[in-house]
């Protein structure tokens, strides 16, 4: 076989390819991680049922896509927007209900109680979906295909699919909107106030119960965005995807500094790229080993995460 390009270029293209792959996985980790970090930032609790909300978001998106395609709608942007809207609304409803049913009655008691309740909720949702949708993988055909390729096919060709670009763009827009919401809006200010001092905010006349419900709703809606994007990217869903995705996103949130929104974004992308690079240059068997070693290392030297703030002991 005649090699026209030089080996350096091949190595570089390979590196770029793996960077793009890592960035794609990382973006969606980040979207899910925000749900963990927002809730933790305000009530100091880890919402283990968050991964299941992501899973439900994917199911809803698939149902909408299948339904609209069945009714004869062919415009892809229309289907995409409809699926996005419906899955966000339904997932937000789940987020709201989960908080109302499983966490609010336990507020003010020991944190351990809420944690157990969260794990219970996660198991409940997983099995609830399994009962109604079956435990087998449900697949949809590739809706958005095609992409760009770089380099020479005879040596190594890097590829970038339209779907990957859509994932970045949607993630970027969502993150920007969230940042604006948190920093500029009245509700966002209330959220930040709650994160600083829940009791004091309550005294100052803000209904903290509503603000806490709001964080659950926003987090769940973002998980649904990730659900739709990853659902379209991989094309399959089963009731168990929430567990692994939740675990990875939680890791991303801790890595970036739990409680910090930019931290969740950074943590997600860092985790995604670490995984891709490990698969690329060592072995995919060691992907999780390296990713979690990184987490341990970061926590050894910066227990508060990359962008988190060290907790000051209040006297």
């Amino acid at each position, binding site marked *: 076989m005649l090699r026209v390009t030089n080996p350096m270029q*091949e190595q570089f293209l*390979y590196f770029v*390819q*793996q960077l793009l*792959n*890592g960035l*794609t*996985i990382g973006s969606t980790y980040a979207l899910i991680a925000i749900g963990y970090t927002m809730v933790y930032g305000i009530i100091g609790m880890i919402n283990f049922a968050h991964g299941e909300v992501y899973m439900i978001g994917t199911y809803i998106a698939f149902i909408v896509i299948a339904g609209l395609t069945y009714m004869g709608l062919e415009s892809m942007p229309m289907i995409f927007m409809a699926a996005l809207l419906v899955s966000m609304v339904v997932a937000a409803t789940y987020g709201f209900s989960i908080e109302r049913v499983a966490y609010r009655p336990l507020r003010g008691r020991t944190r351990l109680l809420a944690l157990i309740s969260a794990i219970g909720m996660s198991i409940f949702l997983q099995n609830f979906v399994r009962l109604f949708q079956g*435990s*087998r*993988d449900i*697949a949809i*055909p*590739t809706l958005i*295909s095609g992409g760009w*390729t770089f380099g020479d*096919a005879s040596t*190594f*060709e890097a*590829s970038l*699919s339209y779907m990957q670009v859509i994932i970045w763009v949607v993630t970027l827009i969502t993150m920007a909107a969230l940042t604006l919401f948190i920093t500029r809006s009245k509700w966002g200010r209330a959220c930040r106030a709650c994160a600083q001092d829940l009791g004091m905010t309550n005294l100052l006349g803000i209904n903290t119960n509503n603000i806490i419900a709001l964080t659950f709703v926003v987090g769940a809606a973002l998980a649904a965005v990730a659900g739709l994007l*990853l659902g379209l990217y*991989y*094309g*399959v869903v*089963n009731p*168990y*995807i929430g567990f*692994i995705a939740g675990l990875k996103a939680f890791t991303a949130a801790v890595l970036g500094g739990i409680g910090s929104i930019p931290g969740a974004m950074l943590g997600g992308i860092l985790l995604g790229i670490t*995984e*891709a*690079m490990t*698969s*690329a240059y060592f*072995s*995919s*068997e060691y*992907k*999780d080993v390296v990713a979690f070693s990184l987490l341990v290392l970061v926590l050894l030297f910066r227990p508060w995460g990359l962008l988190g703030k060290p907790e000051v002991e209040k006297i």
Partner: protein
Amino acid sequence: MKFSKTLLGLATSAALMGATAAQAEIKIALAGPVTGPVAQYGDMQFTGAKMAIEQINKAGGVNGEMLEAVVYDDACEPKQATAVANKIVNDGIQLVVGHLCSSSTEPASDIYEDEGIMMVTAASTSPTITEKGYQLIFRTIGLDSLQGPFAANFIINDIKPERVAIIHDKQQYGEGLATSVKDELDKAGVNVVMFEGVTSGDKDFSALIGKLKKENIDFVYYGGYHPELGLLLRQSSEKGFDAQFMGPEGVGNPDITAIAGAASEGLLVTLPNSFDQDPKNAELVAAFKAKEQDPSGAFVFPAYSAVQIMADAMSAVGELDTYAMADYIRGNSFSTPTGELSFDAKGDLKEFSFVVYEWHDDGSKTPVK
């Protein structure tokens, strides 16, 4: 109303008395998943075994006694399986067809061996089950350790690939198969460039595919199940990686087409022989079809053979003596719908043939060799 009920009661008891008076019954326990995620495989086993029992009874039973099937549900859970095994012991049943999942069969077979109960599994393929030197445990299906070398042979002689990658899912079944394929390929001097595990449940294989592309792999053997391979195929075709893929029977079911779509076209799969396609079995297939049952499942015919072997041994020995029957089974060969079967000292089949199929994107398959 009252009258008719009494009449019905009388009729039933008369019928029951008639039955018991005419002949005693030999119970055969059918153990496997009736519920749970793999219940469909349990169905295959029950269908085959029940058909065998029905046909043997129609032909006059065994030594003048009728066979009766009793179904036990282990849900493919090891814990349930031991409970089921103990229940079978307490119910005084001497013959068991089952279990289905290797992880259930392993703990249950210990109990049967201790209690002098004969067990024949028609579905468990893990080699470790028969490695403990049991006397009363048999199986009518091929082992994982036969399938790997068979696949390797096909790769060496028919595909002759230049650069091979072997991927597995790091589980007992998948990694075991992948390792045995790799060993055979290494012996034959085939260039195995990559041997890597993926995590079962993973959804993203883009980094792995990038690596396969860079290494110029032209053949991939996957040891594992369909959910991961389906995604691997789908993402490979999206990323323009077009090597030949091959997998074991764990990937050969229509779900892989649902996941991979057009990318499942051309996939090679090793599967046990399709006994329902064998012209010798046409009559039996018609009997299944007459009852609206599907004879194409992988475990239907092995389960039929399992019952038949027990019945043959019993009629040769002349009584229900499991140890004498076990000796008879080891010493003779049996002509069954799954072929001429003979057993080695461990209780495994001496021979079991696999077939390589080519998968198509409508979920169908055609034999290659």
